[in-house]
């Protein structure tokens, strides 16, 4: 029995609680009498109308499973017990409805599920300054560390050299990252909550405004920059598109190119990487997509995209019922592809092992393509020239790798290293570029204790309560 498991051993404390509970029960019954009568009348009226089909004609609350005491002293809930005690002390006990409302408005949560540590989501190396930079989608930060930092196994965490975060930064769910090799400027892409690409100077720290902002379509994810052409590429998850801006674009500037449409085979695109040697663009796709109407111009119609050319067609012009789940894929295009054009090549099929392929980096000199396979807890390496249903040439995976839900990666060709941002375990891990199998990382940067649980909450939007299992269901 729940009460038995959580028996209050102090007799004085038990008496106090019972007294409070008796008072509260009486107070609630009296307070709700008017509303109950009102509801009862409404219920009867609603229930007596014939509808020609089966109706619910009565409803009774299920009996409490563990008796009245359990209602007030839930199992294993010290916090709720405290809350009920605290509840009894509220000003509403003295009377006025206004005071009761004020008390409820100010009421503190009894519990809060929240990760206290940074969850790294994307990563890039500042080669010139020998630093590694990461976005944190849990505490909404951008963190810079020494490239050679290594958190000892016994240490709680590694302190970053610099941190950016706070409302002025507009940093929130930053999922894509680019470091300007010329000056160390940090470009950080937001996904789903703030439709603004933020750019900071390398020296920026604390809660400071971005040095530059760009209003983007909703649902950006990946970023890649062609330094020679001074062009910036962004994937758009929600509209299955790629938009290309001037690298120096600012504020409300419109994209200069758009890649979108059924022929592109873009489907919930995430990562993007450029091979400027061979003039190619690589995109990872999770596979969910719907078609857009073809009788409307590629000019924004809503919000910040209004009247802008090369703005992705949004979900408001989706073709009803055209949605589908395509297999996950890598699609390859000419670097300057635009409009509704088919990819030059597609890598997809069961041999690829794709399972939410997310981060991507191409090494044209070695003809290699690196993919962070989010739900596979692994890094997949393919021939960059691969096509069709092909197996990876290397797989980096296993408990020694410490790879867990890798959402970002970075290929450091100067130091011949591969970096992985592990959203699932508070770490960024680095390996030799050629590592494969269950290989331990060369170094680890950790934001919290090694045994800290990882809730992996990322923009929790809806919530449901599972009455059968006493569980909270939270899609992210």
């Amino acid at each position, binding site marked *: 029995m729940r009460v038995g498991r959580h028996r209050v051993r102090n007799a004085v404390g038990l008496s106090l609680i019972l007294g409070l509970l008796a008072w509260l029960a009486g107070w609630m019954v009296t307070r709700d009498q008017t509303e*109950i009568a009102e509801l009862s009348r409404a219920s009867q009226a609603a229930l007596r109308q014939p509808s020609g089909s089966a109706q*619910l004609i009565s409803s009774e609350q299920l009996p409490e499973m563990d008796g009245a005491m359990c209602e007030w002293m839930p199992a294993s809930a010290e*916090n709720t017990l405290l809350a009920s005690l605290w509840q009894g002390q509220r000003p509403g006990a003295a009377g006025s409805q206004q005071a009761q409302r004020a008390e409820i408005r100010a009421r503190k949560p009894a519990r809060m599920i929240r990760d206290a540590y940074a969850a790294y989501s994307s990563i890039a190396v500042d080669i010139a300054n020998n630093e590694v930079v990461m976005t944190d989608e849990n505490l*909404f930060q951008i963190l810079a560390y020494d490239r050679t930092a290594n958190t000892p196994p016994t240490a709680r965490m590694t302190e970053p050299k610099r941190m950016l975060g706070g409302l002025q930064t507009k940093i929130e769910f930053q999922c894509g990252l680019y470091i300007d090799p010329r000056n160390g400027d940090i470009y950080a892409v937001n996904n789903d909550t*703030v439709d603004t690409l933020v750019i900071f100077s390398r020296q920026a720290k604390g809660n400071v405004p971005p040095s530059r902002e760009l209003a983007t379509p909703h649902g950006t994810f990946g970023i890649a920059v062609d330094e020679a052409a001074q062009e910036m590429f962004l994937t758009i998850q929600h509209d299955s598109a790629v938009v290309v801006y001037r690298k120096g674009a600012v504020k409300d500037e419109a994209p200069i190119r758009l890649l979108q449409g059924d022929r592109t085979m873009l489907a919930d695109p995430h990562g993007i990487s450029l091979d400027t040697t061979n003039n190619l663009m690589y995109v990872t796709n999770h596979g969910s997509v719907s078609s857009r109407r073809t009788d409307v111009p590629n000019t924004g119609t809503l919000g910040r995209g209004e009247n802008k050319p090369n703005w992705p067609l949004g979900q408001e012009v989706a073709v*009803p019922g055209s949605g589908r789940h395509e297999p996950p894929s890598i699609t390859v295009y000419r670097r300057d592809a635009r409009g509704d054009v088919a990819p030059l090549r597609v890598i997809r099929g069961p041999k690829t092992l794709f399972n939410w392929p997310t981060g991507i980096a191409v090494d044209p000199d070695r003809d290699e393509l690196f993919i962070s396979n989010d739900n596979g807890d692994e890094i997949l390496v393919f021939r960059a020239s691969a096509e069709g249903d092909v197996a990876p040439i290397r797989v980096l995976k296993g408990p020694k790798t410490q790879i867990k839900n890798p959402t970002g990666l970075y290929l450091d060709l100067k130091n011949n290293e591969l970096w992985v941002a592990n959203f699932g375990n508070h770490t960024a891990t680095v390996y030799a570029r050629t590592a494969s199998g269950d290989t331990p990382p060369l170094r680890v940067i950790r934001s919290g204790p090694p045994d800290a649980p990882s809730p992996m909450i990322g923009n929790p*939007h*809806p919530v449901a309560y599972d009455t059968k299992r006493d569980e*909270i269901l939270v*899609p992210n």
Partner: protein
Amino acid sequence: MANGGAEPLRRIEGQKSLLGRTMHAIAYDEIHDEFIVPQQFAQALLTFRGSASGEEPPARVIQGSRTMLEQPARLALDAVNNEIYVPEDDKVLVYPRMGNGNVAPTRVLEGPDTGLGAASVAIDPVHNLLVVVGARRREGTKIMIFNRTASGNTKPLRVITGPKTMLSRIGGPHAVYPPTGRIIVSIRGNIDEELASDESFVGVWNINDNGDVPPRWTIGGPQGVLQMVRGVAVNPKHKELIVTDKRLNAILTFYFPELF
């Protein structure tokens, strides 16, 4: 009773689940022990076993050309009458709970008299009501209460809207608690605030409220702990209100016996 940095008990994710990383609604069906999630990118409604875990495929999928689904971001489930409700801006689509495949809606609530904008829906099977929250473009947010079986161009029975309501911008899916006739709505606050707002709160109304009626209670704000509230759910067993907050990136549980 999870609290702090709790590890999830189970996770449903991955390619075979047909889910994505951008999910905006969920409904648990305690009668049939299932839950439903809309997949907005793929215009699909995914129904899973209540105990689903890992990379588990949905038990049923509503998707295809007959569905009329456009951007199904949110939904509600009526486990008593076996129906699924999907708000689609100017209309509400209704499907059979057991629908699977390319299923047409069994009825559609749509037309100028409805007053929709529909951003979020909830069902009260006890009082036979459909409660819709949303706003027509460039109009204020309102709570619209229809007969549960309303279809076509039907007027709402009651509309809660106006300055006293403090209904600025809906935060996420709302909830109803039928036994006491509560309507629980999350409000983000100032429409211009993308990141956080002091005006964020959860408000509680009654199904019989009509017109410019202030919430009977607010919790978490305004000027409270909530910074950018999203979804709400009730836990009748423990007399609690569960709330998600985007800026806190957290799930908060309030002890709220007055709701029940």
